[in-house]
């Protein structure tokens, strides 16, 4: 029997771990920092077990609605703390606690020698608790609080090595850019709050999420409590928050920089869970989006464009984690685009499968870094011989990302493509077609950059690793990046790191088919199309059918993906091996990498500078636009008017304070006189103003 305390325990266990680590272990037992890892792993194991159990119970039709607890009554709106359990929540619970559990085990190995390991696990506990709290929230204020807590923990973890300037800058950037999106979300919440009277008239609470869904539905009398342009703007505000968290264009620039954090952090937060919170948020308020064609069109086009654009950027990055970061943005674009065209189930399915294989890829990148001392693929190469397990697992993750049957990514990506091809009555057909074209093109690019990454890292000759990079940087008289280590020991990572990757590898193979079996009645008690039908039951207003498997689309997308892999093989395997014997400088050229894409000239420059988005934001918008023009004007106003006013008010306060303090003579006779005077003043006041008080 699922009781409310048991569901709350999913959230409270990692929170308890956070409190214990930060209040007990870090102050008193910092030398035994690994204890904190064990504590969090145990807490998460229980949370994960409970999550699976809750999912199972919910799937079997158990009633999991719990009354909310009122925290504050504010007029018509009351802020409540409550649990909202629907298929969306239960699946997110499993994903978050599961991926987090695996990543924490891996971190035991990866962070073993870091003196800040207790702090690391404290932040990780806080993050996981906030993320679980976020998906459980039944009230939009509660959700927003966790939303910001997730942002803060992400900030703390990106800047975990805060003595590195790049990490500190990246943390700041992530915080500010996501905050820009959050303004939209906050405005939407404030708007809802001030609709209290209208909601209350219908017996609804403007901050209770199911009530917000209800309010967006058309009434029998026509119109809706929350409808028309207001609904579109509320939905767009929510999407703005989601776009910031999920790195959607044009708020995508923070995510690649966020890779300055420890690699397990990237795997958990910036690949599997937190960045998916944006997708979750749109899905959470999907009943609103269903009623507004305009907002949904924006979501679809932004998602589709992001999927394509980020994939092009992934082509030219040399940092293995940045390749994956753009890949993550691109895949989140797939999910958003799917939500935009009405493919609700496929979007969540992709969120589910992506979490496992992208976490796997990141942990693999961490493992490679452990061996080579660098993240720069120009200094890697040939690692497949020393790291067979890592190679195999990254290959599995990569093939899953590319979408090769029968790996997990294939099934979900295929559903999204089918959904986009078929479209739905929620958006105009042209939108669905444009999105389909963008997504299909992105398949080609995804295949190419994924295998470029694999070839550069694991094939060819070893190009010196971190030691070589430091030497090269010294030759150019530049400081090497802070993340580069001179220690190069080309060997497989320890079991504590490989074992979690193996778990994720298994998930990356089977999670797609097992969760949503095709062509059979059932597998291991999982009925056919289980995931699709379970998620569909989350759509309580209207009906959204998850598209069924489509052979045409599957064959086309597979062919496109294979073409991308072939192209990568051509450019990074065949050509270099052909050219090598021709040149006589075999020994010397070792360590140098010919980058075939540079031949594309200006296009390559455009891509490797990320479409100049950072320059545009930082130089033009921030430095020229914001600092010079806007900040200049504000500065002038501030100096001449605001400061003057503030100084004036502060002066008035301080001086009147001084003046009043003059009365504090210390003379007790005077104190007594003031009391009597007070009584007299009360009398006089009554006699002057008191007439007519008694009406």
């Amino acid at each position, binding site marked *: 029997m699922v009781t409310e305390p048991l569901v709350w325990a999913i959230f409270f266990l990692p929170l308890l771990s956070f409190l214990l680590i930060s209040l007990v272990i870090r102050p008193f037992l910092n030398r035994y920092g690994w204890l904190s890892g064990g504590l969090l792993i145990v807490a998460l194991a229980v949370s994960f077990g409970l999550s699976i159990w809750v999912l199972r119970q919910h799937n079997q039709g158990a009633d999991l609605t719990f009354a909310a*607890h*009122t*925290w*504050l009554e*504010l*007029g018509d709106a009351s802020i409540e703390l409550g649990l909202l359990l629907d298929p969306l929540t239960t699946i997110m619970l499993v994903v978050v606690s599961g991926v987090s559990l695996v990543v924490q085990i891996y971190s035991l190995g990866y962070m073993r020698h870091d003196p800040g390991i207790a702090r690391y696990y404290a932040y990780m506990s806080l993050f996981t608790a906030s993320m679980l709290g976020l998906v459980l929230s039944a009230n939009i204020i509660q959700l927003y609080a966790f939303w910001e807590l997730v942002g803060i923990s992400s900030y703390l973890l990106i800047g975990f090595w805060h003595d590195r300037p790049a990490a500190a800058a990246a943390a700041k950037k992530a915080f500010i850019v996501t905050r820009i999106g959050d303004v939209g979300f906050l405005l939407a919440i404030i708007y809802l709050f001030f609709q209290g009277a209208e909601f209350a008239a219908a017996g609804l609470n403007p901050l209770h999420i199911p009530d917000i869904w209800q309010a967006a539905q058309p009434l029998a009398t026509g119109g809706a409590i929350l409808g028309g342009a207001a609904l579109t703007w509320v939905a767009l505000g929510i999407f703005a928050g989601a776009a910031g968290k999920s790195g959607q264009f044009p708020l995508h620039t923070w995510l690649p920089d966020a890779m300055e954090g420890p690699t397990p952090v990237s795997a958990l937060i910036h690949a599997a869970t937190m960045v998916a919170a944006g997708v979750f948020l749109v899905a959470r308020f999907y009943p609103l989006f269903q009623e507004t064609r305009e907002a949904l069109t924006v979501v679809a086009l932004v998602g589709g464009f992001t999927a394509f654009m980020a994939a092009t950027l992934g082509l030219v990055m040399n940092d293995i984690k940045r390749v994956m970061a753009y890949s993550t943005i691109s895949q989140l674009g797939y999910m958003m685009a799917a939500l935009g065209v009405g493919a609700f189930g496929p979007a969540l399915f992709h969120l589910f499968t992506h979490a496992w294989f992208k976490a796997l890829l990141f942990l693999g990148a961490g493992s490679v870094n452990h061996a080579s001392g660098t993240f720069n693929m120009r200094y890697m190469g040939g690692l497949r011989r020393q790291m067979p397990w890592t190679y195999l697992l990254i290959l599995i993750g990569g093939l899953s990302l590319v979408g090769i049957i029968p790996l997990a990514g294939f099934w979900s990506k295929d559903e999204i493509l089918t959904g986009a091809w078929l479209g739905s009555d929620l958006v105009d057909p042209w939108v669905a077609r444009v999105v389909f074209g963008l997504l299909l093109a992105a398949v080609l690019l995804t295949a190419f950059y994924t295998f470029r990454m694999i070839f550069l890292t694991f094939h060819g000759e070893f190009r010196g690793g971190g030691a070589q990079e430091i030497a090269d940087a010294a030759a150019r008289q530049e400081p090497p990046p802070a993340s580069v280590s001179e220690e190069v020991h080309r060997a497989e990572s320890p079991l504590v790191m490989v074992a979690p990757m193996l778990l994720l590898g298994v998930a990356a193979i089977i999670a797609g088919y097992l969760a949503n079996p095709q062509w059979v009645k059932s597998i291991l008690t999982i009925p056919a199309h289980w995931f699709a039908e379970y998620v569909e039951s989350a759509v309580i207003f209207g009906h959204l059918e998850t598209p069924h498997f489509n052979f045409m689309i599957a064959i086309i997308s597979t062919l496109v993906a294979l073409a991308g892999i072939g192209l990568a093989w051509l450019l990074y395997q065949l050509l270099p091996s052909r050219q090598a014997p021709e040149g006589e400088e075999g020994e010397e050229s070792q360590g140098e990498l010919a980058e075939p894409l540079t031949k594309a000239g200006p296009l390559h420059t455009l891509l490797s500078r990320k479409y100049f988005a950072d320059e545009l934001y930082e130089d033009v918008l921030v430095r020229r636009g914001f600092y010079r023009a806007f900040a200049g004007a504000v500065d002038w106003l501030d100096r001449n008017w605001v400061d003057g006013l503030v100084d004036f008010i*502060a002066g008035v*306060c*301080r001086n*009147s*304070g*001084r003046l*009043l*303090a003059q*009365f*504090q003579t*210390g003379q*007790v006779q*005077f*104190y*007594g006189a*003031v*009391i*009597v*005077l*007070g*009584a007299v*003043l*009360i*009398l006089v*006041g*009554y006699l002057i*103003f*008191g*007439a*007519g*008080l*008694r*009406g």
Partner: protein
Amino acid sequence: MSLHDLYLISPQLTMAGLGILVILLDLATDRKGWLAAAALLGLAAPLALTLVQLAQLTGIYGPALDNLTPASSILAPSLSVDRFGLFFNFLVITAAALVILASVDYVKGLTRLQGEFYGLLLLSASGMMLLASATELITIYVALELTTLPLVALAAFLMNARSGEAGVKFLIISAISSALTLYGMALIFGFTGSTSLEGIAAGLGQATAQPNLPFGSYALLVGVALLTVGIAFKLSAVPSHMWVPDVYEGAPTPVVAFLSVASKAVAFGLLLRIVYTAFPEMGPEWGILLAALAAVSMTVGNLVAITQSNIRRLFGYSTIAHAGYILVGVAAMSQTGAGENGVAGGGGFATFGPSSVLFYLAAYTAANLTAFFAIIAIGQRIGSDRIDDYGGMVRRSPFLAVALALALIALIGVPPTGIFVAKIYIFTAAVKSGLVWLAVLGVINSVISAYYYVKIIRVMFLQPIPEGGAETATGESGDEQPEAPTDQPSKLTNLAVALAALATVLLGLAPGPLLQAAESAVTALSGVALR
């Protein structure tokens, strides 16, 4: 006097008995450490008796009752054992327990009269509990004196110039206030012919002479004005507020901590009881008076606090400001509750104002005790009260610095602390009573208060440790204090800090249970119960 009557006042009696017991114990033993233990353990008796009375009220032993005092009892007109009184019993006992816990290390520094310190504290507490339940003017007066006189002795306890001055000033101002209070009571009695609050209400109904005059007659008007300034002394509100900073600066810090929360709380209880029970028809008059006092108190308190450099003086003004905020809730109550009684009512809304007052008192108790306990512990370490000497506190004593910062943030009214919730409720009550201007003024005052509260946090977290500040006692008052710097960590004080800080945060995170308790407590007031 029957046995049942004894039972009715048993919490107060056991509290007073405990005080005398501790003083006697001091004579009997040389191991002074036992005194605090005895006082703390002994508090279980009044606590248990209060619990039993509450259980009986809620109907565990029979039918649920509004008031345990039977009409036939000789206590009937003068003492009402109801949930309102019991709420304050719990508040006073909790505050007393925490203060005793926090003062153990402080009292060890005293050379003599250790037992008397605890004894006087407990005697004053018994007066407070009596005051919270008193429903008759003479009883109220006796309880007021019982509350104040031990505190006067405690204020002068250190026998140095500063403490002595504090005690004498406290005594004189208290005497003036008593005189005014008594005179006010006499006038009210003369006009209504009764000293019991219920009787006054009845008397008012019969004799209303001049309809255009506030309160209907000059005698009553003067009586109310005098009674109000008398009670304002206990509230530490304008115009009877000037003693506060002097006493806060000179008196022993644990005494100030107790004075600032428990004494103030029961005074607000008394004010609510008088306004609601004795003047159920006179809401508009009371409302304008209390609103004016609230406005002036918070503004004066906050403005003068800005200029203070001694942390205890600063808290003296801070407590005046908070008296102002709380008075907002009392003013809000009277305009919407008792005053418009019988006319178009606002449903159960009349509980909103007084229950927000009760909640605010509890939240303020938690936050202010956190602050004062931290000040005690810091004072023992650095031997100074000057805010400048608090520099670098976060490195010298991170726990105390963080706790004091938490208390200060709470006093501003920032979430997630109890006073945040309390301020929301109290200002909402004001808005709903049509006192929008007062709510706005309250918010502006909260912003002003942030200036001096945050200033302390800034000193503790951002400024360097003052040179020699950690070792030698600096500041003009250093050599006169028993708070000579010690290296011994005061564990019990720290425990008290932690408990009070926990309560501060808990009241912000889960205000529900206490709010419900406050709401059920105020329904015991006849003005509210009429709805």
